[in-house]
Every structure is written in C-alpha cells, then in structure tokens.
C-alpha cells in the first residue's frame, strides 16, 4: 500500500461520536443474532441429548452428525444457504444454530449422564413423573456442564457472527467489512473488532454469574 495521504488513525474519537448510532445498531444485531442462535441451539440440544442418552449408537450418530456440521466452514454454509434463504438474518441464524449443536449436545449429554442414579431413583420413588424429573432434578443437576457448553457456544458464536457480513447481516462484522471496502477505514475496522472481543468477554462473565447464581450447592 502507498503511504496514506489523508490521516487514517486506528483509534478515532470522532469516528465513535459521528457513528454512535450505526455502532449501536450493529452491536444490537450482533447480540440478537447470538442470543437467538445459542437459544435455539439449546432448545434443540436438550431433546437431542435425551435421545443420545438412550443408546451408544444414537449417541455416535447424533454427535457424529453434529461434528460433520461443525466441520463445514461457516462461509461455505452461508454460501449454500443464501440462494435459498436469501441475504437475511435467517441465513445467519440457521448456520450459527447448527454450529452450536456439537458443543451444546455434548455438554448437555455429559451433564445428564453425570446425574447419580440414586438421585434419579429417589426422585422417582417420591412420585416424580418423567417430565418433572427432567425439569426439577436432572436439568438443574446438569446445569454446570450445560452452562459450560453455553459459554463456549456463546463466545464462538459472537466471533462467527462477523462472517455473516458476507450475507449482509454480520452485526459488527458489517462494520469491519464496510471499513475495509471504504478505503481501509482503520478506526471503523479496529473499533468493531475490539467491540466483538469485548462483547465475548462480557457475555462470558455474565454466563459465569448465571452459573454461580443457579448452582447454590456448589458454592463454598
């Protein structure tokens, strides 16, 4: 690259001030896309993990399929989905939800398998049906493992949302891409990238707090 003629600083307060609306909107989309994808992923992961718990063959099949999806590059998945679902948030959410499945199913399964048999039997003896057993005994006891999975899935998803820029819905990735196409606008690129990392750190800390709050028996 030729030496810059116009000043093109990495950090610029005027960029932040002049574009606060756009930055906020991109951040909001980033958070929304992440929350929906991880939320949907978790909703799918619980029944899949319950299914996988039934037999080793189902476990290999489900984890194997989730692993195959996980191996497919996000850009490739968006490329294959885009002609069908368009340049929309839907394309990004479908892809990102699919990626969370491997970590979430595995961790939900590990959590459920870790519930001691005696506890399950005692709960059954108290007359709990299968649904209440799951909701009031098994899932709460599996919560630490599940939340560990949710943390990994959330942090990776926040990083991956940026790739959604190729289908025009990448949250902060949109700003990164725009800055690149806009004569290498450094302040925009760096600000958006740093905000992504900050978002991941904040989300991780919040989820850690949630884990602390809902597992009182683990505190000492």
């Amino acid at each position: 690259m030729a030496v810059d003629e116009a000043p093109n600083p990495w950090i610029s307060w005027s960029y932040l001030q002049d574009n606060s609306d756009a930055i906020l909107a991109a951040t909001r989309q980033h958070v929304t896309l992440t929350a929906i994808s991880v939320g949907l992923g978790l909703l799918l992961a619980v029944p899949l993990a319950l299914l996988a718990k039934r037999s080793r063959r189902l476990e290999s099949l489900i984890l194997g399929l989730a692993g195959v999806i996980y191996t497919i590059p996000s850009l490739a998945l968006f490329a294959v989905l885009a002609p069908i679902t368009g340049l929309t948030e839907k394309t990004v959410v479908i892809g990102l939800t699919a990626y969370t499945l491997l970590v979430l199913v595995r961790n939900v399964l590990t959590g459920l398998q870790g519930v001691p048999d005696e506890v399950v039997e005692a709960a059954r003896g108290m007359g709990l049906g299968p649904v209440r057993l799951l909701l009031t005994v098994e899932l709460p006891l599996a919560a630490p493992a599940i939340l560990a999975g949710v943390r990994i899935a959330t942090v990776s998803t926040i990083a991956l949302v940026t790739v959604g820029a190729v289908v025009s819905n990448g949250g902060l990735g949109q700003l990164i891409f725009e800055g690149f196409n806009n004569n290498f606008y450094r302040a925009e690129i760096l600000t958006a990238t740093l905000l992504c990392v900050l978002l991941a750190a904040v989300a991780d800390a919040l989820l850690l707090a949630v884990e602390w709050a809902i597992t009182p028996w683990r505190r000492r």
Partner: protein
Amino acid sequence: MSTASDTVAWLTDGAHWQGVDGVPHRLVEHLAISGLAVGVAALIALPIAVTLGHLARGGSLAVNLSNASRAVPTFGLLILFAVTPIGFGNRAAVVALTLFAIPPLLTNAYIGVRDVDREVREAASGMGMTGGQLLRRVELPLALPLIAAGLRTAAVQVVATATLAAYVGGGGLGRFIADGFGQADPAMTTAGGVLVAALALVVEVSLAGLQRRLTPGPKRQRVLPGLDPSLAGPSA
C-alpha cells in the same frame, strides 16, 4: 430446486476446471495458504508447548490462550492485517491463519507432554535417562496422539478459514464464493460452498485417520469430528 441443478451444471462444466480461475488451481492455492499457515504455526507452537509441558509450567497460559482465541473474530483480524503494511491478499490470510492455528497446536501438545504418567517419568529417570532423553524417547512418543489431535483441529480450522482469504483479495476456493456473491451468481456461490465443505470434510477425515493410527489401541476412543480436548471447556 433450480439452484441445485444450476450448481451441478456449474460443477460439471469443463470450463470451470481449467486455467487460473479453475477449480484445480484454486484448490492448490487454498492448500498452499493453509499448509503454509499450519506449518509456520507448528514451528512456533510445538517447541514452546513441548518445553512448557516438559517443565510442567505455564499451564494456565496454554489453556487461557486457547479459550481467549475463541473470542477473537478471524474475519476482523484478517481484515485488520490486510490494512496494515502486511498488505492485501494471501499474505494477510497466512498471517491471520497462522495466529489462529497456534492455540490448538499449543494447548494439545502441552497437555500431551504434561500428562505423561508420573510413574513412567520416574521409571525413565530411574533408568538413568537425562531430561533430554526423557523428552525425546518417552514424553514425545506418548504425547504424539494429542499432538496429532491438535494438528487435526488446527488444520481443519485453517482450511475452513482460508476461505475468507478471497475477501481480502487472496486466492483459494473462497474466490468462487466471494465472486459468486459479488456477481450475484448463486450457482457459483453454492458450488464454491460445496467445494469448500467437501475439502474441510476430506481434511478432517484424513487427519482423524492419522490421529487414530498414532493412538495406541487401548486409548483409541471413537475419534469424533470436532471433538478436541482443548475444546473441553472451562470446567471440564
């Protein structure tokens, strides 16, 4: 779906398999970018990991590095490098990919060497082995399965991410996706997506095979795609 038949037509059109813009040339570019990145990352990561593992020091560094790297968007870093003096194109891609290949290589190799059985280590020292001999003849061979696991994770990740190189003016199979989007040519976009996905799966399956071969029988668990000890999560 017409997109599906258009994609098949694109992929079976001989013209798309020739020349600088053809699939074989883009594939070679893709593999060259990826191979270079993984190679450089291994040269940097493995000596550090093996040394730290041998000394059983710096564990939290290795694990935190791998966790923290998950939070950094590759796309952002790639574009950041492209607007620095590193420059536009394949060079920015190789630098970004190398950085992302280091954490899985480092973490796995570190855990592999560090977790060699204490008794095995003591037996080796009891036989009069020096630190260097212990490392070369005992620790490294025993750590090989995990080193292979790290290599597999790193390579699959790099091959996948190398697709983004096209967005900073680089080559590789990502060109078909980027150009397909750019020229509003869904058949080309989808064909590119299919090719990249197929390549990632081929690399995954072949390296999983390598990993299995390097893992002695009793420890040979089912090697599932994407499952990597360094991915085990903060509490595991």
